[in-house]
């Protein structure tokens, strides 16, 4: 299996003058397989956003290595290749849209890469269609809803033809409708376009269908496995301040009350299927 991103003994601390130097990331060893949908969860301050910035060389490891498609992020000669391979989408859609018109913003990345105008046009059309925003191509961004803006931001990354998209809490500032739009867009990109997705979030429901879920706490990887393996550990997750999907919580409570029910129920459908079996 081919790995798109590999971290080896990755440690990181912000350069502060203070005496109490604190490691934000502690000895992280991860291998991300190509084409997978990976969820990274953790509460605020667990280091998950810092980890995201390591993946496209916005931050460099204090110790250890990060390889993106075999390229060392510390090697500055590959900087732009790395950023094109692993695109990063941020939390606030307002602060990552550069141009005053949707299609021009999507063109921003490819323009930076020096791609010929005709091909940029094709890429913009492809990217906007992939996120379902093609009919809004002539709109100014401030006329769009939060979810639509975030989809435009995703299109801006897609247009650079990355192999991997990292999304750093892309739904944190959105309303439930916008959140749904963005999540289904991401899933579609993963399934239909085969783009590796690393979704960083604190909404457990968003990663229930992921191929793999990684739980972070205090700069370390605490749990790593399929959603069923991870969400089974209700007690551990609660200990580090995370919740589990509501249905899983229900199953956990029922089990504690003495009911014979599996603890790896993640969706309402699974619960219904179990009860009506």
């Amino acid at each position: 299996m081919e790995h798109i991103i590999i971290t080896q003994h990755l440690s990181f601390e912000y350069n502060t003058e203070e005496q109490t130097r604190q490691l934000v990331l502690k000895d992280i060893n991860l291998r991300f397989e190509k084409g997978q949908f990976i969820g990274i969860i953790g509460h605020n301050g667990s280091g998950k956003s810092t980890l995201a910035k390591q993946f496209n060389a916005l931050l460099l490891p204090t110790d250890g290595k990060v390889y993106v498609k075999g390229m060392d992020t510390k090697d500055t000669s590959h900087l732009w290749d790395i950023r094109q391979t692993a695109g990063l989408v941020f939390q606030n859609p307002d602060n990552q849209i550069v141009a005053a018109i949707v299609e021009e913003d999507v063109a921003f990345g490819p323009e930076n890469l020096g791609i010929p105008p005709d091909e940029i046009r094709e890429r913009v059309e492809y990217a906007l269609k992939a996120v379902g925003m093609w009919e809004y191509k002539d709109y100014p961004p401030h006329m769009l809803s939060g979810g639509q803006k975030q989809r435009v931001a995703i299109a801006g990354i897609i247009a650079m033809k990355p192999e991997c998209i990292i999304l750093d809490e892309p739904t944190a500032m959105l309303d439930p409708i916008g959140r749904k739009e963005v999540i289904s867009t991401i899933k579609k990109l993963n399934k239909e376009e085969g783009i590796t997705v690393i979704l960083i979030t604190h909404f457990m429901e968003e990663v229930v269908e992921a191929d793999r879920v990684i739980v972070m706490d205090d700069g370390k990887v605490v749990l790593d496995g399929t959603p069923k393996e991870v969400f089974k550990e209700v007690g551990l997750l609660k200990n580090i301040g995370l919740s589990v999907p509501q249905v899983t919580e229900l199953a956990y409570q029922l089990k504690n009350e003495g009911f014979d029910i599996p603890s790896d129920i993640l969706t309402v459908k699974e619960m219904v299927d179990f009860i009506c079996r």
Partner: protein
Amino acid sequence: MFRNITIGQYVPGDSVVHKLDPRIKIIITFIFIIAIFFINKLSGYLFAVFYLWLIIAISKIPFSYILKGLRPVIVILLLTVSLNIFFTPGGTILYTVGPLRITTGGLRLALFMGLRLIFLIIGTSLLTLTTSPISLTDGIEHILKPFSSIGVPAHELAMMMTIALRFIPTLIEEAEKIMKAQMARGADFESGNIVKRAKGLVPLLVPLFISAFRRADELAIAMESRCYKGGQNRTRMKQLKTQPRDYAALAVTLIIVMLIVWNRSWTW
């Protein structure tokens, strides 16, 4: 309070004037401004009037919009005219008030200066009335590009203008939000004299500035992660292409300029 702020004064339309290549429009405007300074007789202004009338008629811009553009400069206009009337020597003296003298030379110069200013302002506001800020930015970038080798920051200027255009509505929205939040806590933005009202703006401006800086920081990181590395080796999706109508507009302008130059040799 902020809703009716428009960026620039662009009036959307689909006339030939609107569709002209922004580069050509900017160049034409410059040629026209220079031509205005060549006029040395009142009859010369006939050509300028005809030219502006032609543009206004084709672009279907309401005349009231053009007058609105003149309003902010009325003070400068009056100042220029009166200074010229009173302080220009030469010609026969018509009237004396203390140390001030009104001469025929002064009147003539004042009239020319006033007309020049008015035509200048109408000419340039026709450019901004018929060109959207975005295409204006494109045009400026393309015109300045040849000069970037001698240190003119063409790409940087255009990028700054684009980002400003992009963020003005966002910041207006934010200002409204902050204002409402402060009003909910008892802030008063509307009563009192000017000094009091200016002071009242502090609780609006401080959070607005802090948030603008935070936005700028995040935007810079986002741009970097989208491979932005300045203007070198950058391509543009939108390519400006000159069409026959652009050359026609240029030709009409040059004819007017030639007429104006020819007019200098007239006797009236």
